């Protein structure tokens, strides 16, 4: 560790424990970040690949944008095509889609917190020093669930055996090894988190299995199609019962362990609740009533500044993407329907072009999207369950409302969202079960593809607002565009030089040890970056087409 506050540059490349390839570059002055650049490092070109293919086939292709938020791109694509056709899927199909999307979001939040993020806070090696009895007492207190000391003793023994064997595997070279001043959990707290890290590996497998009952497999569902879903088999009573049992088990873990661990985090890391701020928040609506298509359970909107109580309705016409700092030939900011893209790699230059990502802006401003944005919008509107649970978390951690706008706030919002969503799943499941009991359920409806049409699909996915835009000509895909959450959150600066959400959030972050900048990882990870999603963006509908060499 440096003796005095560091001044200089820090580059983290690759950022690990994310989906995809990301490089983070920051300038640090006296131990505090004063400038930051986010650079995505992969380009795949999925939009050009789907051009000319049947619109109803596109969801298969674009689903492969991402295997982590797997299925969301498929669903959003189906919504875009159904929107273009003026088609409405049968209500039971919408219920199945709700259950697939809800289990996906919760699965994703859980894996994000435990397997992608918790090692930024939890020193696994230090857990070997814990008293399992004291740890069990702590775990029982924060989770409201009786945790037997024997369970934690077993985990500790297993960890000890693992560490003593000398092959640290995926934990090798961790920033916490040998001690790190920014890791401040007690040995008992570390043991509780480490035990839940392992337990969550098994719980996530079960949520994914529950999802697969409807989806045909996970990752990458196969049952959702333009027209509805195909999983008649999943509507049998024993299959619904299988889903319910898996769901109940996972819900217990989320309502107790996941919730309790965020209390530990909030209590022990109040300073992480004071940095990682962004300015504006935006997300789309989702989980509409399956009969009417109205009254979304997730209600979208925009929150400017931190003005709790003043939420604005979202106007999709205000979305534009800027090109000037990405590796693309220059062009004016454009709405997704009119986007022009021509890739042009010129090397990494933070003062010029520095990312494969474009820069989406809402009314010209950078906005954050995702669980924190959704919960803040709901909180701002006074939606009861969100307000109650967010306030309960703040109170348990002795934090204030302003601490929601932070790195830990972002992480806690995911937990709150998981709890709320899991509670809601029960209602959708009951509804589907009632319909299945009443007789044959319609889950697919025939359709006719128009020759000429255009449509958009919106989805409030794990990492934020996702939209797909399709133009159909001669019954084929003439143009396809995807504006994805991680582009909003982790893209580069816009034409006016305004930083993206993650770039804003890094400014002001402390860095205690420039060789092991865990504070940067905490903030970047708190966005749950999903880079494969954000870097395929290639708008094939413009006047210029892709340059094939």
């Amino acid at each position: 560790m440096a003796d005095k506050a560091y001044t200089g540059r820090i580059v983290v490349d690759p950022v690990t424990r994310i989906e995809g390839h990301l490089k983070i570059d920051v300038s640090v002055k006296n131990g505090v970040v004063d400038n930051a650049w986010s650079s995505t490092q992969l380009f795949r070109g999925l939009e050009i690949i789907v051009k000319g293919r049947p619109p109803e086939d596109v969801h298969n292709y674009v689903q492969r944008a991402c295997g982590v938020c797997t299925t969301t791109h498929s669903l959003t694509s189906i919504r875009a095509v159904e929107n273009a056709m003026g088609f409405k899927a049968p209500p039971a199909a919408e219920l199945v889609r709700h259950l697939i999307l809800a289990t996906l979001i919760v699965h994703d939040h859980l894996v994000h917190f435990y397997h992608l993020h918790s090692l930024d806070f939890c020193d696994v090696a230090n857990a070997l020093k814990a008293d399992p009895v004291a740890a069990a007492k702590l775990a029982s207190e924060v989770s409201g669930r009786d945790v037997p000391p024997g369970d934690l003793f077993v985990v500790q023994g297993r960890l000890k055996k693992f560490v003593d064997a000398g092959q640290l595997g995926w934990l090798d070279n961790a920033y916490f090894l040998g001690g790190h001043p920014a890791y401040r959990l007690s040995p008992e707290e570390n043991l509780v988190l480490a035990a839940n890290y392992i337990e969550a590996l098994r719980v996530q497998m079960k949520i994914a299995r529950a999802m697969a009952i409807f989806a045909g497999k996970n990752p990458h569902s196969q049952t959702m199609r333009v027209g509805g879903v195909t999983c008649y088999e999943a509507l049998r009573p024993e299959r619904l019962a299988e889903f319910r049992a898996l769901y109940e088990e996972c819900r217990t873990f989320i309502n107790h362990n996941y919730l309790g661990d965020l209390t530990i985090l909030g209590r022990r890391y109040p300073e992480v609740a004071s940095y990682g701020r962004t300015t504006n928040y935006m997300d789309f609506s989702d989980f509409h009533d399956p009969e009417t298509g109205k009254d979304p359970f997730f209600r979208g909107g925009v929150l400017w500044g931190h003005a709790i109580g003043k939420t604005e309705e979202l106007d999709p016409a205000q979305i534009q993407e800027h090109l000037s700092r990405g590796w693309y030939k220059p062009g004016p900011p454009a709405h997704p329907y009119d986007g022009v893209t021509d890739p042009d790699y010129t090397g990494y230059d933070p003062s010029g072009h520095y990312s494969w990502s474009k820069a989406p802006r809402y009314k010209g401003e950078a906005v954050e999207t995702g669980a924190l944005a959704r919960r803040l919008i709901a909180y701002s509107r006074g939606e009861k369950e969100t307000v109650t649970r967010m306030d309960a978390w703040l109170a348990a951690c002795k934090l204030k409302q302003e601490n929601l706008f932070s790195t830990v706030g972002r992480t806690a919002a995911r937990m709150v969202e998981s709890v709320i969503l899991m509670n809601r799943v029960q209602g959708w499941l009951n509804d589907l079960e009632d319909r299945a009991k009443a007789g044959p359920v319609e889950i697919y409806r025939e359709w006719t593809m128009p020759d000429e049409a255009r449509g958009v699909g919106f989805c409030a996915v794990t990492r934020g607002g996702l939209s797909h835009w399709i133009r159909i000509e001669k019954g084929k895909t003439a143009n396809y565009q995807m504006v994805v959450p991680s582009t909003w959150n982790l893209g580069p600066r816009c034409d006016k030089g305004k930083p993206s959400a993650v770039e804003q959030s890094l400014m002001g972050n402390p860095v205690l040890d420039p060789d092991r900048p865990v504070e940067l990882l905490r903030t970047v990870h708190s966005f749950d970056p999903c880079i494969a999603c954000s870097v395929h963006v290639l708008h094939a509908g413009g006047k210029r087409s892709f340059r094939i060499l």
Partner: protein
Amino acid sequence: MNALAQLVARRAEADERGVSRRDFLKFCGMVAVAMGLEASMGAQIARALEGKKKPSVVYMHGAECTGCTEALLRLVDPYFDVLIMEVVSLDYCETVMAAAGHAAHAALQKAIRNPDGYFCVIEGAIPTRDGGVYGQVGGQTMLSLFTEVAGKAKGVIAMGSCASYGGIQAAAPNPSRAIGVGAALKPLGIAPINLPGCPPNPVNFVGTVVHLLTKGLPDLDTSGRPKLFYGKTVHDMCERRPHFDKGEFAPTFSSQQARDGWCLHKLGCRGPWTYNNCPTALFNQTTWPVRSGAPCIGCSEPGFWDQLAPFNRDVREKGDDA
């Protein structure tokens, strides 16, 4: 520790030994069956895996969606935590590893200098257009980095359809000129074991790893796939095959026949052209696409995104305007 804690601890320790040993033997027996061996071979596999040192695995991510890694997380025999704590040493894997940036790079350098060697797993295709600038890790192109890492490995596994054959980003017109690992490493004389699928079944990964550790290289087909897992077509093992044989086809997805689980051949099923064990291995231990009413899209076949598409119709109509 007080007396009560000691009592709890002793009991827990006994439980732990029993349970983890039982789980481990169950896993070995399962692997034996997956490999087409007698379940009693499980004990022999267990002995082979219980060496002093865990074999090192270096897992690289190229042009991919991380769906293959996600599939691995869904493992049950063994659970993923057992895999990385007790079976192999996962010395590099960007999706789960604790280290980042320089520390991650150092972990990779250490792993590939391991005197005991390592197995290299690659998920994702390798972009080659413009020298490979379309995919970079730590300032190095994937093409150059993977060549270095795979070149020194004891064995190379191409995990998933992208690594095996280029996958989604290699679909026409292949904007980044992405290719599979086998094609990229051909100049080095390296032929990977291909485990295609989108995603591949994680059971096939574990079976392959265990085969490598206990019996060496599995027998491969002409597409580089282990015959153990990819020896038969999905169609041959399909639970809806009796409907096919009787000529009972669902005409539409909304039909009574679709509801009754009839053959999906006329709705675009690519099972007859697809070599994989989905009907017997299942996904997520509970189902697979055809059981759930969704036609197979042929995701473990080379070039399926173009050659087996469009997926929305009977393959006999494919020529119309494909």
